[in-house]
C-alpha cells in the first residue's frame, strides 16, 4: 500500500467532527468504517495484492492460461467452454499445442496488441511472426497470441500463467488500460487531497498511485521472469497525439472561484484561435492552464494549436501529452491511454530488472521524422493502423533477435518482410475506426477521413456503409433488421465481428453525415435514403419523440451529458435526468417541413445566481424563445411555427444562463460523494431537463390513430 502524508487525515477527521456535530449519524458511521474503527470481519481487510489481482478459481486438476486450460493427462491447452462469453476477447485459437523445436514467442497485451478493428484478419502477433520468420528459418518460430481486449492489471496474472507455455521470449504490450485503482481505505486520503488542493491535488495523488502500481507490477513480473531466465520485452505504448482530442468540457470546480475567469478566458482563446490571433490565443491559453494547473485539456489544446501553427513540434508534443494526462484524475469519462507516468515508470523499471524495452513513442517519432503520431499510425486514441502495427512489431522483432543472440537486423529491413493484409481488411478497419471515433466524440473531419480511407482501400465497402445507415436509423433492434442480414451475407468478417456485436443504434448525426458525404464522393447517393429512413422511423409526425432518449441524446455535445442514459453504463442510484455542463445543450428531432411542432420541456436550474434566470431555446437558428428558469421543475410548451420546421433533422439549441459559481462547495460535495463511494460530480451544472417531448402539433389535436383507437378499445383505463 502506498504511503500518504498523515496530515491529509486532519481534514478527514475535521469532516467527521463536522458531520457528527450535525447529527448526520449515518455519514459519521460510514466514515468511521473507512478508518477501520468498525471492522467486523476479517475478510473485510483483504491483503493488498495490488490492483486487479483477483485470482480466478482454477480447478485443481488443470493448468490455466487465459481462457485455455490443460487438463490432467493431456498435453495441450484447450479453450474452456464455460468461458464461452470470454472467447471473443481473445485470439480465436482452439488449442495451444505443446512446444516443439520452434522458438516460442508469447505476446501478451490488451486491445492494441489484439489488433483491435483488424483482428482476426490481421494482428500484431501475425506481424511479429511474419517479421521473425525469415530470420529464424533454421529453428522456426511461432508467436502465441495471448492478447486480450480490455486487459488491465490482470496482465500480471496472465504473465505468470504464460510461463506454463514454455516460452523462449515473452512480449508484453500493455499500459493503456492501467488506470489508478483505489481501495476503500484510500478514500479518506483522496478526500483530504481534494479538499486541501482541489483537483490538482487529486491529480497528483492519482499519478503517484499509478506510478506505484506500475512499478509494483513491472517488478513482480520482472522478478519472476528473471528467476526463470525467460527474456521479457516490454512495449511502451504511444498515444494518438496528433489527431485525438478529448471532448472539450468546462473546467471542473475550482476552489479559488476561478471558474468564471476560466470560462471567459476559454471563450476568448477560442475566438482568438478562430480569427488567427495566435499570440492572443496563446496568452489566454497560458492563463487557463495557470488556473487549472493542467487538469483540463482545453487550454493545453489551444496552446498546442498555437505551437503547431508555428511549427514548434516539440512544444506541441509537450502540450498534447499534458492534455492527454490532464484527465487522469477523472474516473468516469476518458478513453484508454498510456499516461506519461505510465510510460516513464515502465521505461525506468523494466530496464532495472534486465527486461528489454521497445519504446514506441521514440520509434514512432523517428519514423515520422519528428511529426506527431497521428492517423497514419492510429485508428483512434491508441489502436494502431496496419502501418502502426508493422512498425511496432518490426521494432519488437529487431529487439528480439538481439535477445535471442541472432544477427542484428534493422526494423526497416524487417518491415520489408512483413506483408500487409488485403485492402479489404484495411477498409474494414478504417470504416470501423470511423464508427469508433464518432462514438468517442471525435469531430466530423476525422470521422470523414476514416470513411474516405475505407472507400479508398476498397470501394466495395460502400455496400456495408449503405446498410449501416439503415441499421443505425431503424428502431428495430440491430440484428432484427434486414440490413443486418444483408451485412452478414457479405464477406466482411471484421464488420460482423465488431459492428454487429458491440454497436448501439443511435442518431449518429456526424457519423451518418460523414458516411453519406463520403459515399457521395464515390457517386453513391445515400442522403435521400437516410432522410426517408429518418422520417419513416423517427419523424415527430408519426410518433412523439423524447429527445432525451439515448438515441437522440447521444448527439449531445459532451460525454457526461449522455452518460446517464447510455445503455450498459452502470448508473445505479444516480440521477435519471439530463444535466447540462456547458452554456449550450443541443438536441435533435426529425421533422417534416412546414409541419408545426410542439416542444414540451420540463426543466430547472438548481444552481442559479439569483434563484431565477432565463434559458433561450433556438430552433434551427430560425426561431428563438425564452423561458424562465427557477430552482423547481416547470414545464413549458413551445409551438414551433411550421415555417421553422424542416425535413429531416431539426436542431434545438438550449442556451443556459451562467450559473452561480460555487467551486468550493462543489469540491466539498465531490469529496463527500467519494467518501460514500458514489460517483462524484466535478463540474458545474448549468441546467437540468427532466423531459423534452417533441410532437407534431396536429398529433396533439387530432383523434387517435387507428392503432391507438384499437389499443384503447382493447384496454380502457380503470
Amino acid at each position, binding site marked *: 500500500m502506498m504511503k500518504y502524508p498523515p496530515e491529509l487525515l486532519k481534514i478527514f477527521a475535521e469532516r467527521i467532527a463536522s458531520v457528527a456535530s450535525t447529527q448526520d449519524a*449515518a455519514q459519521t*458511521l460510514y466514515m468511521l*468504517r473507512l478508518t477501520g474503527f468498525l471492522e*467486523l*470481519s*476479517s*475478510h*473485510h481487510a483483504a491483503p493488498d495484492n495490488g490492483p486487479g489481482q483477483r485470482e480466478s478459481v482454477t480447478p485443481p486438476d488443470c493448468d490455466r492460461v487465459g481462457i485455455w486450460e490443460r487438463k490432467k493427462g493431456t498435453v495441450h491447452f484447450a479453450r474452456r467452454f464455460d468461458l464461452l462469453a470470454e472467447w471473443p476477447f481473445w485470439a480465436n485459437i482452439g488449442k495451444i499445442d505443446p512446444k516443439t523445436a520452434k522458438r516460442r514467442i508469447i505476446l501478451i497485451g490488451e486491445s492494441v496488441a489484439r489488433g483491435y478493428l483488424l483482428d482476426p484478419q490481421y494482428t500484431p502477433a501475425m506481424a511479429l511472426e511474419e517479421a521473425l520468420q525469415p530470420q529464424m528459418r533454421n529453428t522456426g518460430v511461432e508467436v502465441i497470441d495471448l492478447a486480450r481486449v480490455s486487459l488491465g492489471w490482470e496482465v500480471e496474472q496472465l504473465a505468470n500463467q504464460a510461463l506454463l507455455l514454455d516460452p523462449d521470449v515473452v512480449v508484453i504490450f500493455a499500459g493503456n488500460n492501467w488506470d489508478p485503482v483505489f481501495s476503500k481505505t484510500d478514500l479518506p486520503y483522496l478526500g483530504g487531497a481534494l479538499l486541501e488542493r482541489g483537483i490538482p491535488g487529486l491529480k497528483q495523488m492519482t499519478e503517484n498511485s499509478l506510478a506505484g502500481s506500475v512499478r509494483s507490477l513491472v517488478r513482480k513480473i520482472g522478478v519472476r521472469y528473471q528467476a526463470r531466465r525467460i527474456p521479457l520485452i516490454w512495449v511502451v505504448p504511444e498515444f494518438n497525439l496528433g489527431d485525438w482530442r478529448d471532448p472539450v468540457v468546462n473546467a471542473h470546480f475550482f476552489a479559488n472561484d476561478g471558474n468564471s475567469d476560466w470560462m471567459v478566458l476559454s471563450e476568448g482563446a477560442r475566438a482568438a484561435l478562430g480569427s488567427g490571433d495566435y499570440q492572443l490565443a496563446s496568452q489566454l491559453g497560458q492563463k487557463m492552464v495557470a488556473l487549472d494547473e493542467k487538469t483540463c485539456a482545453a487550454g493545453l489544446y489551444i496552446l498546442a494549436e498555437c505551437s503547431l501553427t508555428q511549427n514548434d513540434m516539440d512544444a506541441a508534443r509537450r502540450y498534447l501529452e499534458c492534455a492527454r494526462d490532464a484527465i487522469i484524475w477523472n474516473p468516469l469519462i476518458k478513453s484508454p491511454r498510456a499516461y506519461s507516468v505510465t510510460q516513464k515508470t515502465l521505461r525506468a523499471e523494466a530496464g532495472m530488472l534486465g527486461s528489454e524495452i521497445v519504446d514506441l513513442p521514440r520509434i514512432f517519432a523517428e519514423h515520422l521524422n519528428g511529426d506527431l503520431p497521428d492517423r497514419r499510425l492510429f485508428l483512434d486514441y491508441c489502436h494502431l493502423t496496419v502501418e502502426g502495427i508493422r512498425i511496432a512489431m518490426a521494432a519488437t522483432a529487431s529487439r528480439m533477435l538481439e535477445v535471442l543472440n541472432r544477427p542484428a537486423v534493422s526494423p526497416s529491413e524487417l518491415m520489408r518482410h512483413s506483408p500487409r493484409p488485403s485492402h479489404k481488411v484495411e477498409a474494414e478497419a478504417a470504416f470501423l475506426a470511423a464508427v469508433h471515433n464518432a462514438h468517442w466524440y471525435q469531430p466530423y473531419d476525422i470521422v470523414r477521413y476514416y470513411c474516405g480511407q475505407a472507400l479508398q482501400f476498397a470501394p466495395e465497402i460502400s455496400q456495408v456503409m449503405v446498410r449501416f445507415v*439503415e441499421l443505425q436509423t431503424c*428502431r*428495430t*433492434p440491430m*440484428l*432484427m433488421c*434486414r*440490413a*443486418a*442480414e444483408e451485412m452478414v451475407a457479405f464477406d466482411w468478417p471484421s464488420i460482423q465481428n465488431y459492428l454487429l456485436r458491440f454497436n448501439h443504434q443511435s442518431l449518429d448525426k456526424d457519423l451518418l453525415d460523414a458516411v453519406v458525404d463520403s459515399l457521395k464522393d464515390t457517386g453513391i447517393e445515400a442522403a435521400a435514403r437516410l432522410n426517408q429512413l429518418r422520417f419513416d*422511423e423517427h419523424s415527430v409526425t408519426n*410518433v412523439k419523440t423524447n429527445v432525451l432518449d439515448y438515441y437522440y441524446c447521444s448527439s449531445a455535445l459532451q460525454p457526461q451529458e449522455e452518460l446517464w442514459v447510455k445503455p450498459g453504463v452502470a448508473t*445505479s442510484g*444516480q*440521477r*435519471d*435526468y439530463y444535466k447540462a455542463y456547458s452554456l449550450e445543450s443541443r438536441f435533435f428531432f426529425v421533422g417534416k417541413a412546414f409541419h408545426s411542432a410542439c416542444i*414540451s420541456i*420540463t426543466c430547472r436550474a438548481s444552481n442559479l445566481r439569483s434563484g431565477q434566470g432565463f434559458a433561450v*431555446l433556438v430552433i434551427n*437558428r*430560425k*426561431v*428563438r*424563445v*425564452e*423561458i424562465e428558469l427557477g430552482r*423547481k*421543475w*416547470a*414545464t*413549458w*410548451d*413551445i*409551438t*414551433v*411555427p411550421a*415555417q*421553422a420546421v424542416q425535413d429531416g433533422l431539426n436542431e434545438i439549441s438550449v442556451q443556459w444562463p451562467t450559473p452561480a459559481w460555487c467551486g468550493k462547495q462543489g469540491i466539498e460535495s465531490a469529496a463527500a460523494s467519494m467518501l460514500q463511494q458514489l460517483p462524484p460530480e466535478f463540474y458545474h451544472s448549468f441546467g*437540468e431537463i*427532466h*423531459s423534452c417531448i417533441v410532437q407534431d402539433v396536429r398529433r396533439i389535436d387530432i383523434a387517435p*390513430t387507428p*392503432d*391507438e383507437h384499437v*389499443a384503447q*378499445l*382493447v*384496454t*380502457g*383505463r*380503470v
Partner: protein
Amino acid sequence: MLASDNTNGSPVVIKAERRAEDPRVNIIGISAGYHDSSCSLLQDGVLIAAVQEERFSRIKNDKSFPKRAFRYCLEEAGITIADLDCIAYYEDPCLKLGRQLWMGMVPGVTAERRESILNRLVSRQPQQIIQKLFGYDGPIEIVNHHLSHAASSYYFSGFEEAAILTVDGVGDWPTTTYGRAHGSEIELFEQVDFPNSLGFFYSAITGYLGFEVNEGEYKVMGLAPYGKPAYVDQVRDLIQVTSGGQYRLNMKYFGFLREDSMYTEALSSLLGRPPRSPESQIEQFHMDVARSVQVVLEEVLLDKIRYLHSRVPSENLCMAGGVALNVVANGRCLKEGPFQRLFVQPAAGDAGGSVGAAAMAHVRITGERPAKECLRHVYLGPRNSSAQTYQILKSSSARFQDCRQKEEELIRSTVDHLLQGRVVGWSQGRMEFGPRSLGARSILADPRRPDMRDRINALVKKREAFRPFAPAVLESEAGKHFDLDHPSPFMLETCQVISSLDLPAITHVDGSARVQTVDHETNPRFAALLQEFARRTGCPILLNTSFNMRGEPIVCSSIDAILSFVRCQIDVLVVDDFVLERSGIPPLWEVQAQQGFGDKGSDDETVTHLVYTML
C-alpha cells in the same frame, strides 16, 4: 411568413407557454429495495398506471429503484415531474433499519451478516435516493409497509367497510396485521412482529423443498395436491398458534435470524429427510411435505380470520401481502371462514405496495378515499402500438400475417392455430400489473389436449412438470364449467372444475383450477378470442399462462414478445395485429434473442435459493 420576418438572419422570437399546474392530485407510489420494485400513479384517486421495474429492465424481480417505471407512469398520464403533488414510499426506512439492527444484535449472528447490516446503516435512505434519482424536491410520504398492503387492498375493493388482513414475510417490524376500514379510514389494530412470520414459515419449507425462496412458494402450493398431509403433525411443531391474532414460530427450525438459510438442521431431523437439492427429482415425500405445509397454513389463516371477524364483524374481508397470493388458502378461507366476500389485491406482494402507498398518501392529502369502485382490471402497464410493431416487422425479413383493421381475421387465424394444437404467444394492449398474465401478455393453448400441459411446461416454459396451468373463461360461461358463482378477473381463487368437457391441461390433480373470468368490457379482444374458440369448439376456455420463460420477467414490449417467442418453443406469436409463425423467423433473430438474455445485472447481494432477501 416566417421567412419574410427573418430578413436580417436573426431568429424570430416566439413565445413559450408555461404549463399551468395540473389541477388534479397526482401521486406516485414507489416500492423498491427488496424485490419486485414498482411504481404506480394515482390521479385524483384514480389508478392510472402501475408497473414493475423488471418489465423494463428485464431483470427478474428487479429491486432497484423503478426509474423506468416512474417515467412510464408520468408519460401514461401525460404529466411531468412538475405536476407531482407527492411521492409515496411503501415502507418506513427507519422502522426497517431498527429491525435490521436488531437482527445484527441476535447472539450468534455471523460477522458477514453484521457487516451487511452496518452497510445498510450507512447507505442512503430511500428519501435521498428519490431526490437524487428523480431530481424530485417535493413532499415524500412514508407509509408503513403493512399499511401500504392494507391500503392497496381495501381502497380498491369497492367495499364501504371491511376487515383487513395483511400477511407476508417481513417488511419493517410487522409480518401480519389486523385492521378495520370504513370510508377513507384504515385502522390496523394488531400486529404480529418479526421474527414470527407466516410468510417465513411457508418460505422455510419452500427452501427445504429445493425451490427458490420468495419465488417458489407458488410451486409448493401447486405441488401440494399431489401429496397427502402425512407430516402435518411435524409441521405444526414449527408454529404455535396463540391467543388473539398472535402466533409464534418455533425458532429452532428456522435459521434466518443467524444464517443465510431459512431453516436449520432441526427441520431435516423433524421431517426425517435431508433437504431436497434444487432441480433434483421430486418424490412423494416432497409432495407430502408440500401438502402438509399448505394444510397448516390454511389452518392458521382460518383461525386468524375467525379471530379477525370476532373483532371486526364485517361481511367483507380485504387481504394483501405475499401470503395472500396463496389462492388455495384464499379459497378455503372464503368458503369456510366467516366472511361473505373477499377482495385480494391482484399485486398482493410488495409490488402492490406502491399502489397502497399512493392511495394512503391520497387520503392524507385530500382526506378522501381514492377509489370508490372496485378495481375492475389491472391492465395498467405500457401498451403495445400496432404502428410501432409494424415498423419493427417491416424493417426485417420476417414473414407475418398483417391483420390491421381486420380483427375478425386475426381472431379467426389465432383460433385456427389453437385448434391445430399450437401454442400461441399473445401480446395485446396494455400490460397487466402484478404477477399474473390475464390475457394481455399470455401464452395460450387449447385446454382440451391431454399433452398440452406437459408440452408447455417442458418445451415452452422449461419448468417443472407438475406445475398446473390456469384457465381463462368467458365470464358469462364460467358457471357452467367451474364451481364459481362470481367473477374472478384476477385469477386469485381456485375452485373445482365441474365442466362436462374434458379439460386435462387446466385441471389440477385434485380437480381444481385457478380461474380467470374474462368479460368483453375490460378485455374485448381476449373475450372475442374466447368467444370464437367457443363458437368453433363449444369450449369457452383457453389455457392461459404468463408470457415468459423460466427466469425471465413477463414480456412487456412488442420486441420483448418477439424475442421471447424466438427463444422458446411457442409455435405462433400474435402481437398486436400481426401473426408470426416460427417458420417466418429470420435466422439472425435467434442471435439477437440470445444477446443479453440471462444477464442479471450486478448485485452484490447474491441470493441463493435458500435465502430470503430479508435485509
